[in-house]
């Protein structure tokens, strides 16, 4: 091989390597970007099938086959697909009525309307859906056992420290969610018309 033919071949090889490296970096960057967008959506998103009312979110079609792929991925990632296990309608809240995330150093009061239902339960769980251990061994209230005011209203206080009335102890957890289950509720057929006024408010109390 003469020197005059070896140099162009070397140049062609270099050009080919540069092109391949461009393809590979584009492919690698694309995969990383695609995974990052997916992670952001499943971590923060609620999906197209979510029904929201104030701080409460429900996935009424959670366990059904006609669920869109985004909601299915979000529920699978968060483990909330198991919410469809019972025959009730389930609402989850991970923040107060002002849109702020729950802070375990603060008290929260849940009060106001509960949609019409034969029975309801209000439960305090970890974000992974497991009851939080506490000395009082209290994880929630049912509609039958809750203490009500003379007018029929009620207030539940979530706090680390003992509170009078309906107290839901936080235990030592740093993060928590509230879950409201409605059994035999008239809401089933009209969840889309739900407004924040039909659902209990979650008000932040004193902190520290």
């Amino acid at each position, binding site marked *: 091989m003469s020197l005059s033919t070896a140099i162009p071949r070397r140049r062609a090889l270099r050009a080919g390597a540069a092109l391949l490296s*461009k*393809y590979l970096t*584009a*492919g690698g*960057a*694309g*995969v990383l*970007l*695609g*995974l990052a*967008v*997916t992670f952001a*959506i*499943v971590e923060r998103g609620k999906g197209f099938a979510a029904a929201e009312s104030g701080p409460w979110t429900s996935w009424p079609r959670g*366990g*059904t*086959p006609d669920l869109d*792929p*985004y909601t*299915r*991925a979000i*529920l*699978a*990632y968060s*483990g*909330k*697909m*198991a*919410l*469809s*296990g*019972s*025959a*009730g309608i*389930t609402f989850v809240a991970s923040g107060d009525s002002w849109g702020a995330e729950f802070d375990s150093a603060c008290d929260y009061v849940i009060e106001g309307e509960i949609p019409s239902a*034969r*029975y309801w*339960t209000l*439960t305090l*769980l970890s974000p*992974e*859906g*497991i*009851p939080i*251990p506490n000395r009082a061994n209290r*994880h*929630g209230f*049912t509609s*039958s*056992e809750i203490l009500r005011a003379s007018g029929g209203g009620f207030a539940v206080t979530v706090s680390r420290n003992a509170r009078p009335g309906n107290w839901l102890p936080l235990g030592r957890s740093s993060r928590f969610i509230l*879950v409201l*289950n409605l*059994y*035999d509720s008239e809401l089933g057929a009209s969840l889309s018309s739900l407004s924040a006024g039909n659902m209990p408010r979650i008000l932040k109390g004193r902190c520290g």
Partner: protein
Amino acid sequence: MSLVDRLLPALLWLLGVLTVAGITHLVAIFALPKILMKDPYAQIAMTAKPAEFTLLPLSGSGSPAIPFADPALVQAVCPYDLTQGALRLHADTGGDRLLTLSFRTMEGEVFYSMTDLAAQQGKMDIVVLTAAQLDAAEANDDEDNPSPELRLIAPQKKGMVIAGALALFPGERGEAEERIKSVSCMAEPIPQE
């Protein structure tokens, strides 16, 4: 070399990145449920006795728990396999106590759910069967005396029934367990024509 000549390769590279990102995103969204979704009910159903209700453990009892399950709801699972025959459920209801039944595939899809409000004269009689078994059952029906049972066609031969009884007070948990235990779930051969 003009500005367009210099920008064109960079724009093509960016377009390539966005195309790959879009494809990756769609593949990940469709693949995630299959990778991550291990239905906790199905995991317990796989180890439970078929055609029989097994009480689900309470969260925090050391056994695998059902995430997001209502702690006030006592639950039991009855796995079934319709290969050999149908599944018959019977429950006597009364006392205005909540009893829920949900029918699921092993992939966690709920194909039917009901509560004790659907009971007829205080009784719930349900038969879960395949489409072929339904045809055979209908062929054996007495036209003058139709069967009062609710017949459900299962989308798959294997699945499970989850029964739930609400304990309105913590002290009523034992009573709720008894209500669940009184629900029968058993295999039933379908007579052929």
